[in-house]
C-alpha cells in the first residue's frame, strides 16, 4: 500500500480522518460479505442487496459530507471556496443544459419518426413500425433518466471528493487555514 505523505485526497490505505463512520473498514467488509452472499443465493435478493448497498453509499456520503462541510466551514466560508462552489454549480447547470439540448433533439427525431407511416405496406411492417414507436419512446425516457441520475451522481461524488480534500487540508495545517470572509 502506498505510504504517501500527501493527504489531499483519500488513498487506498488506512482511511483518513475525514472518512465517515459508515465507510469504515468493517462496514466495507460487511457490505462485501452481504453482496457475496446475495450473489450466491437468489437473483432477486442480489438485486435488492445491490440497490441497498448503493443507497447506503449515497447516505453515507451525504452524512460524511455534511460533517465535513460543517467542520470546514465552521467559522465561515473562504472566498476561494465560494468561488469553487460557484464554479461547481455553474458546471452542473451547463451539463444540465447540454443534456436538455440532447433530449430535445431526441424527442424531435422521435416525433418525426412517429409522424411518418409511409413504407408500412404490409400488416407485419405496420406492427413493427407501431412497436418501434413505443420502444423508441421508452428508450428515450430510459436514456434521459439515466443521464439525469448520472449527473446527480457526478455532482455528489465531485462535491464529496472536494470537501473531504479540503477537510484533510484543514486538519493537516489548522494554523495556516485561511480566515473566512464573505464572498465578494
Amino acid at each position, binding site marked *: 500500500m502506498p505510504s504517501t505523505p500527501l493527504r489531499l485526497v*483519500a488513498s487506498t490505505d488506512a482511511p483518513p480522518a475525514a472518512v465517515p463512520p459508515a465507510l469504515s473498514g468493517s462496514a466495507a467488509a460487511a457490505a462485501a460479505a452481504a453482496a457475496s452472499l446475495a450473489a450466491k443465493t437468489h437473483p432477486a435478493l442480489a438485486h435488492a442487496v445491490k440497490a441497498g448497498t448503493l443507497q447506503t453509499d449515497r447516505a453515507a456520503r451525504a452524512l460524511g459530507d455534511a460533517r465535513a462541510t460543517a467542520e470546514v466551514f465552521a467559522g465561515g466560508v473562504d472566498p476561494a471556496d465560494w468561488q469553487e462552489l460557484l464554479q461547481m454549480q455553474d458546471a452542473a447547470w451547463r451539463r444540465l443544459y447540454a443534456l436538455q439540448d440532447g433530449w430535445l433533439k431526441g424527442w424531435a427525431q422521435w416525433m418525426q419518426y412517429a409522424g411518418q407511416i409511409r413504407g408500412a405496406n404490409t400488416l407485419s411492417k405496420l406492427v413493427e413500425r407501431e412497436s418501434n414507436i413505443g420502444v423508441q419512446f421508452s428508450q428515450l425516457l430510459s436514456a434521459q433518466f439515466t443521464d439525469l441520475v448520472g449527473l446527480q451522481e457526478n455532482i455528489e*461524488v465531485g462535491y464529496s471528493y472536494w470537501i*473531504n480534500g479540503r477537510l484533510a487540508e484543514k486538519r493537516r495545517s489548522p494554523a495556516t487555514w485561511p480566515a473566512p470572509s464573505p464572498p465578494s
Partner: protein
Amino acid sequence: MSVPKRPEPARLQAYNVARNQHSVSGLSSGAFMTVQLHLAHSASFVGAGIIAGGPYRCAESFRNTALLAEDAYALNALYICMTPLTPKTAPNAEYLAELARDTARAGRIDPLANLADDRLYIFTGSRDEVVSSIVVDSTRRFYEQLGVGSGQIKYIDTVPAGHSIVTNNIEDSPLGTNQPPYLNYGGFTQSHDILEHIYGDLQPPATGLSAALTSFDQSEFLGDDAACASMGAFGYVYVPKAVQEGATARGVHIVLHGCKQGYSYINYAFGRADSANQPPYGNRYITTTGYNHMADSNNIIVLYPQATGDDDNQAQNPDGCWDWWGYTCANPSEPDYYSKDAVQIRAIHAMLRRLCGD
C-alpha cells in the same frame, strides 16, 4: 460441400528489433492503458501518445466514495477521471505522482528514472465531452511531476475535436463529434504526428503498404487468466516487408484502441449482446488510422492488442475497454490493474517480448 476446418490461429513471430526503442499510444481507455503500460515497463519505451487519457491510477483518487472497492473505483473513473465538474474535482497530479513513486519503490513498475528522456504526445480535443480536457491536463502535469521535461511533451488542447482519434479520411465523422466509432476527420493524421514526435526524423508515410496486416493468437498470452482478461482471441500486427526479410526494425509501436473499438466489439443493447448488428469499428481502427503507412516507410512494427466486451459479471466490461479501474482484478480491494502483474499489461508485454525474440 463439407464445412471447412478452421485453421489454427497464427502465432506471433519474432523479428530483428532494436532494443528498448518501443513506444505506445492509445485513445480513451487505450490512452489510460497507455499511461499504465508506459509506467509499468518504462525501461522498454522511448515515448507515448495519449489521446484523451487520464493520469496513472486516477481511479483510486477517492476510495471512500462507496463501501465496495469496485463500486468506488467505477465512480472515480466515471466522475473524477472522465467528467469532473471543475479542475479541483479532477485527478490530483501531485498525489498520483507520489502514488506512482510508491508503486515504483515497491518494485511493481519499472524505475521512474526511465521516463526522464521519453517523449510524450498528449492531446485533448477542445470539444471532448467524454474525457474532459481538465483530466488530460492533469496527465500532462502528472508526467511533469515525474521529471519529464516540458520540452519533451507535445501538448495539444486547441483543436476543436470531439472524443476521437483524428484522421484525414473524409468518410470519418465530423471533427467535433463525440460518438462511435470515435474516428473524426480533422484534415491531418494524428497517428503520424504521434510517431513523428516520439521518433523524430521519420520518413514520410508510404503511399501503399508493402505487407499485409495479420492476425495472431492472443489467447496464448493470457494463460489461466483468459476468463477475466477481457481480451479477444485475436490481436493484429503490421510488420513491414523489409523487416520480414531481415532488416532490423526501429522499434515496436503498440496501438491501444478505445472502448467500442476492438475487432470483436458487439453493442450491448439494454443488456443484451446485439450480435446481429456488429459494427466494424475495430477493423477501421487497425486499417484506416494511418499507423501502418507511417510504420511501413520507417521499419516500425505496429502491434494492435485487442480488448473485448464482456458483461457476465466476471469482467464487467461491456464496451470492450482496457482495464484502468480494476475490473480484471480478483480482489478489488487490492487492485493490480496498473502494475507489471496486471493480466492485460502482462499479456501485452509478453507480445512485445515475443516480437523482439526475447
